[in-house]
């Protein structure tokens, strides 16, 4: 029983341990207790600078019982200081760890019920994702349109008519209020195909009109045998929010006929997916090529066995290594955001970002390969009378070219993935399309791009594995 250290630890946690020579333990005890007390104060003190905290019990001054955990640790600390061999260390770790876990749970807003409650949202995403928007049935499309004003101005215009794509359309009135019934008369349609009615809002959005008999279905009208058509419809509310509903604006009715021709073709989004993948692969390829070219000279500057000889080169080595470590620790996503600001949206920004990361990562790997080369062959080439270039060519190059190539191929594989990601912040490629489709909730297109990304990643994976196997 050591009274003095116990007293010291009672006054200041860890002091007793510290004074009796167990410095690390003393500091740890003090640190853990300080952290626990700070957390309790932060969570229970009202408006203590962290007003907007997410902790559920924030600001409740009655939660004094949170002090039980620090008190237990404090008591243990006195016991630990008093006992010559120290007290069991797992006790305070358990108490403190438990407390941190509860706080962590609250701060991370963990809520398993929320995860399980929203099954309908999952289905909302899963269902369209099962039908990736990549290919569509090949079809011949014709569409005619006619324009009207909604709502009516003071002076009503004449009943409009218009012919486009060979479809002549005429409306019963040149203007209408929302919900008012109008009649459209058409001619020149193909008699064998039903026509869809599609509405265009004043800001150019399209949406199909629904069948008044069954609102789950889109409106389809079968033309007569002579290609004429007559149908009534009610003007939908297509006025965008924030626009004065009393201001007459031009809106259009489109009548579209789509006839399947047999076979499949790329859909519009499918074409975007291909374009995105092509762009992403180009970004990956160019950033790998440029990054490797830049990494090679830098790697020589960052190799200790080449640079360690005198203080000047050693300083360059240290500076290079530090720089590479800093750059490597920055995600290429962050670098991409910076480059988007500098050069604007598009694949160039993405390429620059991926290149920067590639240079940092490859230069470090290359320099480690250079540091690891066997000096034996170099010595042997000197001994046979080779000149400097011959020594490099026969003593160094055969040792580093295969592993350099292997790392470069591996980097290409990583860069294909990185190039998709930098697209999310405006770095071009499939990621750029993907983030927009996510924002538009177009999950069929999202699904198509997921599949395309999966295919190229798997392909690159296999390709690089094969090449690297041969280079070993």
């Amino acid at each position: 029983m050591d009274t003095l250290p116990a007293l010291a630890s009672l006054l200041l946690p860890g002091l007793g341990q510290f004074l009796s020579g167990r410095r690390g333990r003393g500091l740890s005890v003090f640190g853990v207790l300080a952290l626990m007390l700070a957390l309790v104060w932060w969570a229970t003190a009202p408006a203590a600078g962290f007003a907007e905290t997410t902790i559920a019990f924030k600001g409740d001054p009655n939660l004094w019982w949170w002090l039980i955990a620090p008190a237990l640790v404090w008591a243990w600390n006195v016991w630990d200081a008093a006992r010559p061999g120290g007290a069991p260390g797992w006790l305070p770790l358990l108490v403190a760890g438990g407390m941190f876990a509860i706080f962590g749970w609250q701060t991370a807003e963990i809520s398993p019920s929320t995860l399980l409650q929203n099954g309908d949202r999952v289905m909302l995403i899963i269902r369209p994702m099962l039908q990736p928007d990549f290919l569509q049935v090949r079809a011949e499309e014709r569409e005619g349109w006619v324009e009207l004003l909604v709502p009516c101005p003071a002076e009503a215009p004449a009943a409009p008519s218009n012919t486009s794509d060979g479809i002549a359309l005429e409306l019963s009135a040149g203007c209408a209020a929302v919900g008012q019934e109008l009649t459209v008369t058409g001619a020149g349609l193909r008699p064998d195909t039903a026509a869809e009615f599609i509405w265009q809002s004043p800001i150019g959005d399209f949406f199909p009109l629904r069948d008044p008999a069954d609102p789950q279905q889109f409106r389809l009208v079968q033309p007569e045998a002579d290609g004429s058509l007559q149908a009534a419809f009610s003007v939908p509310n297509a006025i965008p929010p924030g626009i004065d509903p009393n201001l007459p604006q031009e809106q259009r009715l489109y009548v579209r006929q789509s006839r399947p021709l047999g076979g499949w073709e790329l859909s519009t989004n499918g074409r975007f997916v291909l374009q995105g993948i092509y762009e992403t692969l180009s970004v990956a390829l160019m950033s790998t090529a440029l990054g490797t070219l830049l990494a090679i000279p830098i790697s020589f500057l960052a190799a200790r066995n080449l640079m360690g000889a005198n203080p000047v080169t050693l300083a360059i080595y240290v500076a290079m290594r530090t720089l590479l470590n800093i750059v490597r620790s920055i995600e290429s996503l962050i670098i991409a955001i910076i480059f988007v600001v500098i050069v604007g949206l598009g694949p160039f920004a993405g390429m620059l970002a991926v290149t920067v990361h590639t240079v940092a990562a490859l230069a470090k790997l290359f320099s480690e390969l250079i540091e690891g080369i066997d000096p034996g062959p170099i010595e042997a080439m000197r001994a046979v009378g080779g000149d400097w270039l011959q020594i490099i060519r026969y003593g160094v190059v055969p040792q580093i070219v295969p592993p350099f190539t292997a790392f470069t191929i591996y980097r290409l594989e990583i860069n294909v993935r990185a190039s998709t990601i930098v697209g999310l912040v405006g770095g071009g490629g499939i990621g750029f399309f993907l983030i927009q489709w996510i924002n538009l909730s177009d999950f069929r297109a999202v699904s198509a791009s997921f599949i395309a990304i999966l295919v190229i990643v798997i392909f690159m994976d296999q390709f690089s594995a094969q090449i690297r196997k041969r280079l070993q």
Partner: protein
Amino acid sequence: MLEVRNLHKVYPNGTVALTDVSFRVDDGEFLVVIGLSGSGKSTLLRCLNRLIEPSQGQILWDGVDVTAASGAELRRIRRHIGMVFQQFNLVKRSSVLTNVLAGRLGFANPWLSLLGVWPPSDRAMALRALERVGIRDKAEARADALSGGQQQRVGIARALMQEPKLILADEPVASLDPVLSHSILQYLEQLNKEEKITVICSLHFLDLVHRYATRVIALKDGKVVFTGLPQEIDKARFKAIYGEDAVEVRAGMTA
């Protein structure tokens, strides 16, 4: 004839590796350098072709001052001195043939050699060298696919490409099984006897020294403590070279 005069070597970190080493090697000798690890054997051998720069002293080879040579002249001297290493010093990823051809670098057209282009005469010579050490069938194999003994034979074939007048062998058998030691040393002995190539070889095992050496010099702490015939190394001299506690170990399998 090789003459070493008052050779000193002090490394930049202050280690004294060689102190006042002088000796002579006549053409056609098989000189073995013995001594404990760290006694300066490797440093001495590397000073002879100036892979390591001596601090002081002179090396004369057939009247040419090796220590005074520089640049191209040094490379011309080196290309006539073959060297065989303890760790073989082969490029492991390259083929055996490429490793052997590299021995010809000192004679080759510099630009063609950089492109990896070798004249047919050199290729034929390399195959003959491999034939001579009994591994011609391994010419296309990667060097690291060979066993240790075979790799050292590639090392000898590489030295043969230099048509050397002198071969420096730095512990050529220390990384090999005792069984293989004789096979390697017999190749060196054959070259020494048939081609009249002078061999300077450092060795660990005394029984190998007795078997192969025509003359021995012993180093201790960087100084020459014995020069003479192998049979002159008696118990007292052995203790003087290797220290009081040393017990002789044999490589065995005397061929």
